[in-house]
């Protein structure tokens, strides 16, 4: 099929960006969205033009590197990562807009590539259990009820792609932060540091120019891993609990 692409081109962080138009023929339904961009890039190289920069790596929907806004939706029309979105969800002759994640906390690096290091700093401020290598007790020393383990797992599935931030009208990172807070609070191993964790992570989130939450729920709709919106409520409970306990 033939596509009309409108893709955000921006030479660098401080450069003025614009939507560039490209015509791409020979797209097949079996291509992934990134295969399609690869094909466009080969065409651009052959024409002597600079290819479109975009982040990607595993192409299996697990590393979280890829992610673009497709026709206004983070990761496009299907609830999956951009690398797992296939062109069969588009039609011959479609016009497709491709833009980078848009958020104050995610400055554009080039074209469709953004800087998501703010999310790493949120994790670094408390998204861990302080257990130096070698100091761990026997794994079976503390049984974990299966429902708690499952709850932890559901939230641990976050791949850190940033779609939740990109989808949020406020550019908030609540779903991302809540996923880690709830994952670790669900487990006995994570409960020792639960108060400092939620307070520090929320504090960092605010410092990193992520917006505030107004519970529009766009984050959970865009999340390719199905992190539930209720995790935000759970994090708020953790937060209130921590504030009270600290008082």
């Amino acid at each position, binding site marked *: 099929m033939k596509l009309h692409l409108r893709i955000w081109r921006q030479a660098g962080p401080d450069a003025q960006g614009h939507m560039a138009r490209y015509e791409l023929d020979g797209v097949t339904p079996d291509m992934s969205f990134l295969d399609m961009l690869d094909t466009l890039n080969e065409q651009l190289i052959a024409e002597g*033009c600079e290819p479109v920069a975009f982040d990607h790596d595993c192409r*299996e929907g697990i590393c979280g590197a890829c992610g673009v806004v497709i026709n206004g939706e983070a990761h496009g029309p299907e609830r999956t990562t951009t690398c797992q979105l296939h062109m069969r969800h588009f039609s011959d002759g479609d016009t497709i807009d491709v833009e980078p994640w848009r958020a104050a906390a995610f400055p554009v690096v080039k074209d469709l590539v953004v800087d998501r290091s703010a999310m*790493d700093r949120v994790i*670094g401020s408390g998204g861990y259990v302080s257990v130096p*290598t070698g100091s761990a007790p026997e794994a079976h020393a503390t049984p974990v009820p299966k429902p708690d383990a499952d709850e932890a797992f559901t939230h641990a599935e976050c*791949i850190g792609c940033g779609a939740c931030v990109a989808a949020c009208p406020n550019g908030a990172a609540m779903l991302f932060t809540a996923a880690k807070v709830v994952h670790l609070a669900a487990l006995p191993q994570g409960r020792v540091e639960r108060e400092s964790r939620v307070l520090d992570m929320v504090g960092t989130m605010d410092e990193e120019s992520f917006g505030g939450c107004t519970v529009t729920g766009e984050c959970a709709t865009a999340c390719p891993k199905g992190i539930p919106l209720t995790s935000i409520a759970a994090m708020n409970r953790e937060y209130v609990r921590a504030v009270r306990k600290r008082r």
Partner: protein
Amino acid sequence: MTTPPGAGAGQDAAEHAGHAAGRGREQTGRDAEQDAGHAEQDAGHAEQPPPADADAARTVPYADYRVGEPLVDRSAPDGPIAERWDRRRFEAKLVNPANRRGHTVIVVGTGLAGGAAGATLAEQGYRVLQFCYQDSPRRAHSIAAQGGINAAKNYRNDGDSVHRLFYDTVKGGDFRARESGVHRLAQVSVEIIDQCVAQGVPFAREYGGLLDTRSFGGVQVSRTFYARGQTGQQLLLGAYQSLSRQIAAGQVEMRARTEMLDLIVIDGRARGIVARDLVTGRIDSYLADAVVLATGGYGNVFHLSTNAKNSNATALWRAHRRGAYFANPCFTQIHPTCIPRAGDHQSKLTLMSESLRNDGRIWVPVRAGDDRPPREIPTSERDYYLERQYPAFGNLVPRDIASRAAKSVCDEGRGVGPGGQGVYLDFTDAIARLGREAVAERYGNLFEMYERITAESPYETPMRIYPAIHYTMGGLWVDYDLQTTVPGLFAIGEANFSDHGANRLGASALMQGLADGYFVLPSTLGDYLARLPRDEAFRDVDRDHPAVHACVGEVTDRLFALLSNNGDRSPESFHREIGELLWEECGMARDEAGLKRALERIPALREEFWQRIRVPGSGRELNQSLEKANRVSDYLELAELLCLDALHRTESCGGHFRTESQTASGEALRDDESYTYAAGWEFTGAGRAPVLHREQLNFEYVHPTMRSYA
């Protein structure tokens, strides 16, 4: 390559690269040609390759290797095998905690091995300078591992033990791994699970609250711990979180989006790396007291593999060029159950868990070229070839056998799907026997994943699968301490060659990465630092040392050659071509004639690369074409060593199958008399025959036997 005059460390080099790029775009055709010629000479392959010829008797210059001094692992202790690791740790000299602050260690890569090592070394008090090419240390390819992680916990009381895991791993590796190292791996496996549970890794649990395990890859005990189908992700996030804690504490300086492009060796010791900031293009030198490579395997040399798209061999190869021996490059693992590619546009394959073979039946049409839909082919016209050839094991034969059988039926023209590169994996019988619900319970998420990619439902129509490169057992040669042949350079995880021999067992990659990163390296690295002569131990390298300048200059030159060439072929087109050549001649089954064809073709292809490569853009910005071209330039050298190693090892063993060496029933036939050694290759120049150093392997505890699945 020569050092260009005026190319220095740091900013100078970046300016040089930027300037070079600008100049390259303005060049006339003649200048560009001269530059291409220059690049060729630099890469050191001036000799003209002979024309391609299928005759196996021909000689290939590169195959004319010399045999050098044998390799000896001097760091391995002797004595009873179960006591060796304790002895090594006791005999290791320690670095005073106060002195650790004075040592900087570079760790390249943030996968399971690198992330675990960086976090642990920082916890011990070393200053860690860590690198990854991704935008975040959370994204390394360890994240994609599905199945699980082995550990000899014996929670099932099913007869497992450290010794049994050791035994299984040595045997599974087809007797081409070192006993001491494998035994240590089995010992340490137990501690890994403790560590990960304490980090909050949400392993699968039973209703009693204890950890669940399963048996994996045909092993008779249930020793595989898992976290749904995302074990690698969860283990990696555990290591990443520990690393993040150290980054926030200022103990690790993390440089994401920075790619190692060379190793700095001064006075025979690894003292740093040259790396490129992928955002600004700045090429800089980073200096340290030791360098740890945790940069993964080289499976992407085959172009189509299950590796992440940007996984590459550049760090390994550049270290090899600087003196680190490369061991057993021909030991590559092919996974039989990947989703076949849909067309030429595709450059990455997706793995489907091997567990599918427990209930799926593999078949192809009896008649070549039969293109009826699978449902219309009656049973009498189907060939369930694994069940036919291996009645005892049927569809559960080991990975390599299943893979070769698939290729051979496809070579007969009986493959299915686009391009005839696929075989059916059919669940019809399983659904009839167990019911759709039970099948969905077992494989639902895999079926969903398959359907998302292919738009076909495995409930309705048989899956199509095909083998793909998945893991590389070969890598940099390391001793028991995980130190390479360059003092101060260590290699951990998939980057080294150590524990899997010629074949890796399922669920053992995660185990080895974490064993190396959390436990082994942090114990042995200190010994290296503690034994440095007093006057050297805390002496920093001068940033203006000629070797530093030379190294930065060479990296800059090479990128300049790529940018300024202005040819007519994309990096991707060369990657595809070398990959297809390797897959054809050095893939699942290898023979002398094919390997010689490849060895004749590769130098010509490499020459063509340096003449015709086109890299748009400049070196002073994010330039993914430049990154790719640079990686492909290394594949074009590594591919040659891979084929040579495969040619020289005339036996079949593990993942390396030489068609000349098989039993009557088509089993791999080892030649223990001649090949019970690890082949460590020494670099002598691109395109020049390397020197082979053999490390003889001794089996005191597990006696070599021949496997049989017929």
